[in-house]
């Protein structure tokens, strides 16, 4: 009897400790939703609002910026309108919302040639908070189910001569040159008339400049072909090209960028 009582007491103690710690653990893991939103809002207002605007509509105080390409053509650069829920740089299929990791990568890297600076030095908490805050601007985040990121596994032969040759053929057949030009300088026959979903003129990428907005690794190029850049003229080739062919195309773009011989 005595022994049973002791054992019962011990077990009860342990269980109650575990039970009691659950709310603490949860609280520690995810701070109160209210706190998080406040932090996100603060960070947004301090860092992002000046370009993206208080409502996230891209109409901040900075307004439209102008960039002169090396060719001399001048292009308006507008801060992204976050209320529409269309995102270019995703690891998810076309039409999906980006994952938190995608957004985090964007915050860390910034977007080269678009004047989106890198915010790498921000504490992780604040970055997480601001990502959650950005999601309040568009209803798409509540309405749509999150998609799974597309797996990327680079085959060994990417960049080989035969792969480049296959890529060159695909570049021709899929009419990449209509926008990006036969020499990859973004001066194809259609390049003058391109507009994005907001009706603003955009330029096809000039591969010889080598500075891809998304990132410059072969994997980054591959994921662009696969996901497309929603909101721009760049479609997703996930359904129209086999995975292997997309990698061949990556090889050819590496050649255009002068990164392989």
């Amino acid at each position, binding site marked *: 009897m005595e022994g049973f009582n002791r054992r019962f007491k011990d077990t009860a103690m342990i269980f109650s400790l575990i039970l009691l710690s659950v709310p603490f653990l949860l609280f520690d893991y995810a701070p109160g939703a209210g706190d998080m939103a406040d932090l996100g809002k603060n960070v947004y207002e*301090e*860092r992002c609002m*000046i370009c993206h605007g208080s409502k996230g509509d891209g109409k*901040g*105080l*900075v*307004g*439209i*910026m*102008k*960039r*002169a*390409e*090396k060719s*001399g053509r*001048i292009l308006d*650069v507008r801060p992204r309108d976050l209320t529409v829920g269309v995102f270019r740089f995703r690891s998810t299929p076309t039409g999906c919302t980006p994952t938190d990791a995608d957004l985090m990568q964007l915050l860390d890297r910034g977007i*080269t*040639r678009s*004047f989106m*600076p890198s915010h790498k030095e921000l504490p992780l908490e604040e970055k997480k908070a601001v990502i959650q805050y950005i999601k309040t601007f568009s209803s798409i985040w509540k309405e749509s189910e999150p998609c799974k990121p597309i797996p990327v596994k680079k085959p060994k032969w990417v960049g080989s001569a035969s792969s480049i040759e296959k890529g060159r053929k695909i570049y021709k057949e899929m009419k990449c040159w209509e926008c990006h030009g036969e020499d990859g300088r973004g001066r194809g026959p259609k390049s003058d008339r391109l507009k994005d979903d907001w009706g603003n003129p955009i330029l096809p990428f000039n591969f010889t*400049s080598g500075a891809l907005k998304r990132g410059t690794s072969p994997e980054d190029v591959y994921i662009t072909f696969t996901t497309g850049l929603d909101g721009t003229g760049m479609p997703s080739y996930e359904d129209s090209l086999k995975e292997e062919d997309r990698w061949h195309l990556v090889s050819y773009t590496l050649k255009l960028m002068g990164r392989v011989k």
Partner: protein
Amino acid sequence: MRSRFYLSLLLISGLILIIFIALAFYREISPEWKRYQADYRELLIKKARDDASRKKAAALKIEHQQIYLESLKRVDRCMYCHIGVDNPLMADAPVPFKQHGGDYLKNHPIDKFGCTVCHYGQGRATNKKEAHGIIPVTQFDYPISYRLKTPPPRVEYPGAGRDTHWDFPIIPLKYIQSSCAQCHDLEFLNNKGADRVVKGERLFREKGCRGCHKLNGVGGDLGKALDVVGSQPYAYFPMRNVKGEKTIYAWHRQHFIDPREVAPESEMKVNVTEQEADYLTTYVLSLRAEEMPRSYRRIRDMRFQERPGDGESLYKMFCIACHTTGKDSVFDEIFNRTIPAIMNPAFLKTVDNKHLKRIIEEGRSGTQMTAWKASAAGLTDGEIDKIIEFITRQRPKSKPEPFSFTRFRADIKHGEDLYRVRCALCHGNKGQGGEGSLGLNLRNPVVQEADPEFLAITVRDGRAGTPMPPFGKNGVGLSDQDIADVVSYVKTLSKKK
């Protein structure tokens, strides 16, 4: 056995040597030009209308021809082959026997001017390859022969399109007007139909080439001085990326169309059509080192137009290449920094002429903006004033609300905190600007020594029409004290390493 083998070896090699010597001898006694002259004689006989002239033509000797120009110290032997150059009978003959086109020889007698004064090429050479100085891509081994009914086979020259290490290969006809400008002024040439070089000069003036290139000691310093660029030798131009014929002329043309294709590191800003590139090439080729003797020249100062007197032309000549219309603040991918809008009304409203003059005189070190004062880029005081007058001609009448900077006691530490959050994303941690970010360089002396009142008003009101937002009450919402703190901190940036 053995001795027989060696004996035959000796015999064969001896024979080969003799053949070579014979060939060399044959080549020496029958050079290219002798065949040309023989053909010319036959052509003359064919064209002769009466017996007397036919007899005269038949008696034509195949001989050395040359013009010696004493005052120019030149020897031209072009008529070894171009023997009908001054013969009216040869007006419709094929090259090289054709008479010189136009009435140029009437005003430029051949025994006073020779050929290479205008056409370049190696005057002393007596075969085409060396005289022209360019190996043709493909041509007839022996271009014309009246004795041959069928044309001789086409020969693809090895190393075609390259030069023969003669620095001044023959000028392609489309650029030949560059030679006219050696002795004639452009106004005269314009009336006489030498419009290509005139158009080139106008483009050179209006595209703002001298914003980066010095000519006669005046101009920016980003590019190379162009005073003698028309006389620069072949080795001066990196030919590796030139497509087609690797000549100075092809280099110039391609460099005007796409500078970075020819010289990948080039920062040159140029936007011309192919035709304009031809005109500009013609003009820059006229910028030569050698000066023609006075007896040849028709003008006093032949190469350089007077600098224009009005602000607009001066602006075009020295500013327009980078600042274009001056209305937009544009981030430039070549310079990797923003080129500010110097005719933006919000800027003109805030800035006074004294500060503008200081910017133009001193330039902005750390950026591509040249110091334009007389001791640097060579503009006179009056010229800078005229440019300022032009830039500020649309200055708004209203004045900005004064800031009264002196009423604040600034807290530089607080200013630094604010700068980190509010300014550094565009202007850089150390105020360096550029390098891919949007903001201007704040470290250069012109900003560091600027009136704090001017800086404070700019921070408070922003620059409408540029990405610089207002940070005061009407924008981000900083207090005047905050702005004074930030401005005070900005003024310490040049001391930061």
